């Protein structure tokens, strides 16, 4: 028996794929947004799409930039800010797993969200290592 994901977290490559129509995974990334959109308003649990602010920085996603207008609109992804407490936890996760700063913040963000949480990522190896440390129902989805 599967449980529908309640939240979808975008990693850097997911953002890159959504932002660039020539990216080889653009269509696949859009398929996940389609699922979120199709489930809105139906008698299925809706899926919230979120992006940790560290991912936005890494991906160069400046919401004010005209070039980001399409990405802003098609994703409707909500920012998850990095607070002091969140930074402490991300640092702890990074120290325990050896993953990058951004991957540690993704795991920290996933830990605080309504689950099940799906992380759309191209780097399942590192993410699996750090996701295994968080107290949350997290599943990795390879982009």
């Amino acid at each position, binding site marked *: 028996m599967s449980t529908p994901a309640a939240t979808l977290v975008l990693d850097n490559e997911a953002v890159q794929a959504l932002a660039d129509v020539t990216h080889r995974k653009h*269509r696949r990334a859009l398929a996940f947004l389609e699922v979120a959109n199709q489930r809105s308003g139906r008698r299925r649990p809706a899926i919230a799409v979120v992006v940790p602010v560290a991912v936005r920085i890494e991906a160069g996603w400046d919401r004010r930039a005209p070039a980001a207008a399409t990405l802003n609109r098609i994703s409707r992804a909500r920012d998850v800010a990095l607070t002091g407490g969140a930074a402490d936890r991300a640092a702890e996760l990074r120290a325990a797993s050896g993953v990058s700063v951004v991957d540690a913040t993704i795991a920290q963000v996933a830990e605080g969200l309504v689950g099940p949480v799906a992380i759309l990522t191209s780097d399942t190896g590192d993410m699996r290592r750090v996701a295994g440390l968080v107290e949350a129902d997290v599943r990795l989805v390879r982009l």
Partner: protein
Amino acid sequence: MKRRPPTNQDLFALLDEVDADGPTVVSSVRQPAALKEALRLAVELGLDANANDATVQAVRDRLEAFAQRRALDVHYAVHPGARPSLAEVAQAAAELDGDPLAGEPALIRRAAKEIVSLRPGASADDVLVYAAGLRSRASA
């Protein structure tokens, strides 16, 4: 002066301004009595802090989904090759859900192909239900 027809851009601009701490207005809505009562009960059961919050969130979610739908359709109109097929969306849904069907892409493709002939407006979730039926029938 004739009012300019609204655009997607207008809609997104307003949605981007929506903020929990922003200005509010009072408005009255005619609604079915049973819906109002159901909302009252749902709030008591923990849906939201109050009926107002629940109503605002529901309307906001619906508007966000509508705006996103329009944005996606505009994107596909400009880039037709970017539109994922029904099978691809169903595959994504299975992966998001941790559904074992995710490991059977050929079955999902078959289900997507068959279901559109029966139900042209089928969703990705319809495809997964149909695929589960195909699998169940095959193993019976």
